[in-house]
């Protein structure tokens, strides 16, 4: 190749187009179509550059045609069934889902791998009419979202581990205010700056354990392009229904990975806003003490919005009484804590069970979450695993943790296997804490790379009965 480039007096970077043209020719495609694409991409750089590109393409095509032993591959004809499919990243899928969910304000500070979501939502603003704020830091982003949510819109922010650390004081505030809050936490390997452009699942315990004091929270995780869309409305629904913090985990693999995806069903999503009061009649009946009523069933008290004609209250970041007035008495503190924490059990009951792939009576039970779903389900679909009674239990909702279905399956299984992209086996730790189950085998990876089919296939094959 170097020789060819020298002969044509082409710069080394045109090696890229030479290799592309070689592969293009091997796939049996005509040079004209490639030239058209080159013009589309580089036309703005001037005719001289285009001419040089064309010369390189012609040389590459001539080279392939001289190779008698090489026969170009016959490509399959395009299948019409893929005609309406989308080709998009997880960030774009989440962005579409966030817009679909009625989120009207998005505030964020750039951080890999959360930035592509900001880019997509910001690029869409003139179509969606959303308020987009690139904040001066993550604390600002979290506070802007908190204020917007208190006012009554749907708002969200996204970041990665380091930025999330900065947001946690604000998460705690929303726990006490009983204010809905949604944050997308895109994981990359830490600690510190770590491997900033690689992937990980090391922030599960951060999500479940972050921020001072005790308050209810929901931790959920997307796994791929389908639920990156489907789970977005649910994140906002739970935040509003339970008036608390929702942390949605994603990772670099999902954020930037491209998927072929069937068009999203737009009839499925619900908009559930819980105990939000908006009708003038109902507003007129409210008293200030309804806002943080400690007697509210499941701790879910009415919520209403500044600017609506009703009894007013204080959204109070100090421990408060039912109206939001500062109250430091022991009985009040205990009563309000019990009110808020009652939401944990109510939330646990409301959440869907983890999803099971494979037999209800597994001999080997694999448990995992997040982006491992893709390679795991591919392994289970492979010939070596069909009919082998290996099942996969996938957790989308990670906290509060539901363990009943897991325990039933684990009792039947001869072997239980945990798969995670972190060092400690963090979901395994949560499971052990919540129901005492300890996994027989753990497949853990913490080198910044996602789980790959081959390694999972090999390690799980070794565990087959």
């Amino acid at each position, binding site marked *: 190749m170097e020789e060819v480039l020298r002969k044509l007096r082409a710069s080394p970077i045109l090696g890229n187009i030479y290799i592309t043209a070689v592969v293009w020719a091997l796939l049996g495609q005509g040079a004209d179509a490639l030239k058209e694409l080159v013009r589309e991409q580089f036309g703005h750089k001037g005719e001289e550059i285009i001419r040089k590109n064309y010369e390189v393409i012609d040389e590459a095509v001539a080279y392939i045609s001289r190779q008698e032993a090489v026969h170009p591959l016959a490509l399959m004809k395009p299948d019409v069934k893929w005609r309406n499919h989308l080709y998009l990243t997880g960030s774009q899928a989440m962005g579409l889902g966030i817009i679909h969910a009625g989120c009207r304000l998005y505030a964020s500070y750039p951080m890999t791998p959360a930035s592509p979501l900001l880019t997509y939502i910001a690029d869409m603003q003139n179509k969606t009419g959303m308020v987009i704020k690139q904040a001066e830091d993550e604390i600002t982003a979290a506070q802007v979202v908190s204020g*917007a949510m208190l006012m009554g819109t749907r708002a969200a922010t996204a970041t990665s581990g380091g930025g999330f650390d900065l947001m946690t004081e604000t998460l705690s505030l929303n726990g006490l205010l009983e204010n809905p809050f949604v944050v997308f936490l895109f994981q990359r390997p830490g600690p510190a700056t770590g491997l900033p452009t690689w992937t990980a699942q090391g922030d599960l315990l951060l999500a479940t354990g972050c921020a001072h004091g005790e308050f209810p929270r929901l931790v959920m995780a997307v796994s791929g392009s389908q639920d990156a869309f489907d789970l977005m409305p649910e994140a906002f629904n739970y935040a509003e229904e339970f008036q608390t913090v929702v942390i949605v985990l994603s990772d670099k693999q999902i954020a930037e990975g491209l998927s072929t995806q069937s068009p999203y069903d737009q009839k499925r999503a619900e908009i559930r806003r819980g105990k939000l009061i908006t009708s003038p009649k109902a507003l007129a009946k409210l008293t200030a003490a309804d806002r943080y009523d400690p007697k509210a069933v499941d701790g879910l008290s009415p919520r209403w919005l*500044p600017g609506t004609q009703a009894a007013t209250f204080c959204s109070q970041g100090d421990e408060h009484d039912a109206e939001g007035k500062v109250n430091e008495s022991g009985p009040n503190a205990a009563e309000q804590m019990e009110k808020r924490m009652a939401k944990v059990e109510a939330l646990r009951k409301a959440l869907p069970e983890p999803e099971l792939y494979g037999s209800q009576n597994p001999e080997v039970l694999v448990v995992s979450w997040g982006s491992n779903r893709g390679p795991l389900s591919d392994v289970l679909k492979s010939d070596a695993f069909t009919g082998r009674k290996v099942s996969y239990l996938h957790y989308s909702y990670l906290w509060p943790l539901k363990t009943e279905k897991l325990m039933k399956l684990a009792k039947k299984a001869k072997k239980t296997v945990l798969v995670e992209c972190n060092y400690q086996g963090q979901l395994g730790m949560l499971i052990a804490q919540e129901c005492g189950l300890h996994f027989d085998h753990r497949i853990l990876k913490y080198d910044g790379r996602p789980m790959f089919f081959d390694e999972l296939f090999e390690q799980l094959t070794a565990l087959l009965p």
Partner: protein
Amino acid sequence: MSIPLDTSGPSMKDYATETLCTWCDNCGDYGIWTAIKQALTGLKLHPWQILLCFDVGCHGNTSDKITAYTFHGLHGRVIPFAAGAKLANPRVPVMAFGGDGASFSEGVGHLVHAIRSNYPIVFVLHNNANYGLTTGQASALTWQGQSMNSSPNGIPERTLPSMDFVFSLEPTFVARSFSGNIPQMTEIFKVAIGHRGFAFVDILQSCPTYNKFATHKYLLEHCKPVGPDHDTSDFKKARALAVDTSKHIATGLLYQNKDVPSYYEQLKSRQGLKTTAVEEVKRIDVGEWMKEFV
């Protein structure tokens, strides 16, 4: 931004609460508290029509001493919270209150970017030149050399020239008053609420317990309202007047620029929309936008 008016009009009683005040005797917060209520009443705003956001500090205890939609947040963070609330529903007047500790140390970045952003909110600085709630430590605005709690020898750091700093950020509204001058504060708050963008209101506040240098008496003697001939549109003169406190401290509306659009007005995505983000929460059809990925 028009302010919703009601001809029937609320009274001071509507803003009252039965919550007992816990501020020290002669605390400047009493005067500021009174002026807030008078200004809101004067503008005929009902308690349910507004949002008052408080930082953490002595002033933050106002949060449950006014009947209104109020918020009491984290130390140093009140400005971005208030901004987020306002952007979600620009029809509701939003005032944010913070002390000099929170606003010139922990949360100084928020102040910088709020002025730069020109959010359509009022920010009232309770400036008592110390951390009163944590029993009198030096703030960035404490006079250098003053003996304070945890700095018995005085602080080595220079005093932050707050007014010069604020003017360096090209604000669109700067006013200053003194916690003993309730009529002046009331008028300033009223004008500030009507301002198009970010209104910075510096209230020099007496702290009888911990501030032994800029006392009520000192402020009473030194604060001097600007005269009717003061040109509030002259940036240079206003800055010079605000910064030079050697003879007296100029108070009143020092500077206002009505020509700079607010952050919200500048959002191209919101041009022509009559609704607020609060009213727009519903399932949104993304069918057209999905096609961009086919």
